[in-house]
């Protein structure tokens, strides 16, 4: 009878598909994994990506390549992963705030909803630095000086589309300070300006300039989040900005994304690989040198964090940044 044959065929087909998928499941990654970094080679996120890629390659036994797709300020990289095949072999590695700030401040051809989160591997808060010659021991010293010299002091940030800027605006707004924000063309020039004492204070991601802090040339006067995991003990109890009237937590969490349409099993497999790499000894050694220990957040925790960060930044933007 036809329907029995049909049923038999259907069952056979389903079994075959299941077998193939099962085979696929063990087979991840079936080919070269490409980690897309929308930043230039040599920078902080790129370095983290390469260290992670090296660990992933060791574990997976397949090549893991980093592609710096920087066209359009990184737009091309985001769009590339947004439209990539949902087979878990193309992943975007970017920082949480580096993803959120363009979405909030600019017209970009992608949104949080276009990606599924695989997991997060590295979390660093932003910190507020000052050259030792400024003589600040903590942020309140800066506040006092700024109140006596309104409009004179300067706050360096890496870009107007960044977590640095959001934190700087929040700090200045909540403390009622009139100081000028000076945007630089990225973390590199900002780093140089802070080191050269060309700005009064600078807001930058930890652990940039950690070596100068260790040497004593730079003081950490506030932190956008907890520094308890930093490898340099002396700055671990730097006061966080909520002790300076700014109850926010601003930093950058670097993590991996895949296209939204990727099936859940594939995401889980990818997450498995990334988790192993993030908790591996090699990556931990890298973290120890870089300044922080790596972390592992699963996809859901990471995605929830991104939504929360997005909301927080929008509130700060509405209150302190948008011109009235």
């Amino acid at each position, binding site marked *: 009878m036809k329907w029995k044959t049909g049923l038999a065929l259907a069952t056979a087909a389903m079994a075959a598909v299941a077998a193939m998928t099962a085979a696929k499941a063990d087979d991840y990654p079936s*080919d*070269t994994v490409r980690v897309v970094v929308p930043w230039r080679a040599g920078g902080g996120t790129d370095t983290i990506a390469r260290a992670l890629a090296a660990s992933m390659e060791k574990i997976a036994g397949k*090549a893991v*390549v980093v592609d710096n*797709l920087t066209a359009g300020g990184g737009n091309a990289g985001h769009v590339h992963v947004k439209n990539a095949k949902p087979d878990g072999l193309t992943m975007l590695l970017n920082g949480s705030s580096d993803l959120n700030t363009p979405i909030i*401040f600019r017209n970009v051809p992608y949104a949080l909803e276009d990606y599924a989160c695989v997991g997060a591997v590295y979390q660093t808060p932003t910190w507020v630095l000052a050259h030792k010659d400024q003589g600040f021991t903590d942020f309140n010293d800066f506040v006092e000086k700024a109140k006596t010299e309104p409009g004179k002091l300067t706050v360096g940030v890496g870009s107007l589309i960044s977590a640095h800027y959001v934190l700087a605006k929040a700090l200045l707004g909540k403390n009622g300070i009139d100081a000028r924000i000076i*945007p630089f063309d990225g973390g590199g020039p900002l780093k140089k300006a802070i080191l050269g004492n060309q700005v009064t204070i600078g807001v930058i991601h930890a652990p940039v300039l950690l070596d100068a802090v260790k040497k004593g040339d730079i003081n950490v006067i506030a932190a956008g989040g907890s520094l308890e995991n930093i490898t340099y003990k002396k700055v671990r109890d730097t006061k966080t900005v909520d002790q300076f009237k700014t109850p926010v937590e601003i930093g950058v969490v670097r993590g991996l994304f895949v296209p939204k349409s990727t099936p859940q099993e594939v995401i889980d497999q990818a997450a498995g690989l990334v988790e192993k790499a993030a908790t591996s000894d090699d990556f931990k050694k890298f973290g120890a040198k870089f300044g922080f220990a790596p972390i592992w957040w699963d996809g859901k925790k990471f995605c929830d964090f991104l939504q929360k960060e997005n909301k927080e930044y929008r509130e700060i933007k509405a209150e302190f940044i948008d*011109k009235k």
Partner: protein
Amino acid sequence: MKFERQERIKDLILAAVLCLVAIGGFVFVNPTEAAINDGPGGLSFRTLPFIYSGALLFLVALFAASTIYDLWLMRAGKAPRSLFGERMPVEHNPTADIRRVITLACLIGFAAGLKAFGFAIATPVLLFLMLGVLGRSNWLENLLLALVGGAVLWILFVGILKLPLEGSFWDPVTPLLNKLYSLTGAR
């Protein structure tokens, strides 16, 4: 004299194009987005581009004026003055011009082909076409050069340098080549 005249007219066309560019410099600077921060020292994001466009307009006007002056002189039977500098004598080479157009078409096709067909297919095609266009008539030799050259370049750019040069849907070759390459034990 006719040659000189033609050259001047081409100059005028260029001047017209540059004039449009300069005007575009004023118009397209960015009418819609509002600045996030205020520019320091009285310079806004428009200041310098406007200065550039203004200067360009002025200079293009000078250029156009001198060209028109020369044309007028020539019409009156006198020699052109070329107030703003002589140029090298220009060769007219129709064969070369045809080749240039074809080369351009090949280049654009190559860029488009990279996206669709991937490096592995686009490059030998480009090489073969270009070798032919540039006057090498031995088809077999060209084909061989294209294929071998393409293979070597593929190994260099995709195998060793690992540039992301795969095509999208229409590229069956690259995954095959990737497998072959990894069989040799290289990364």
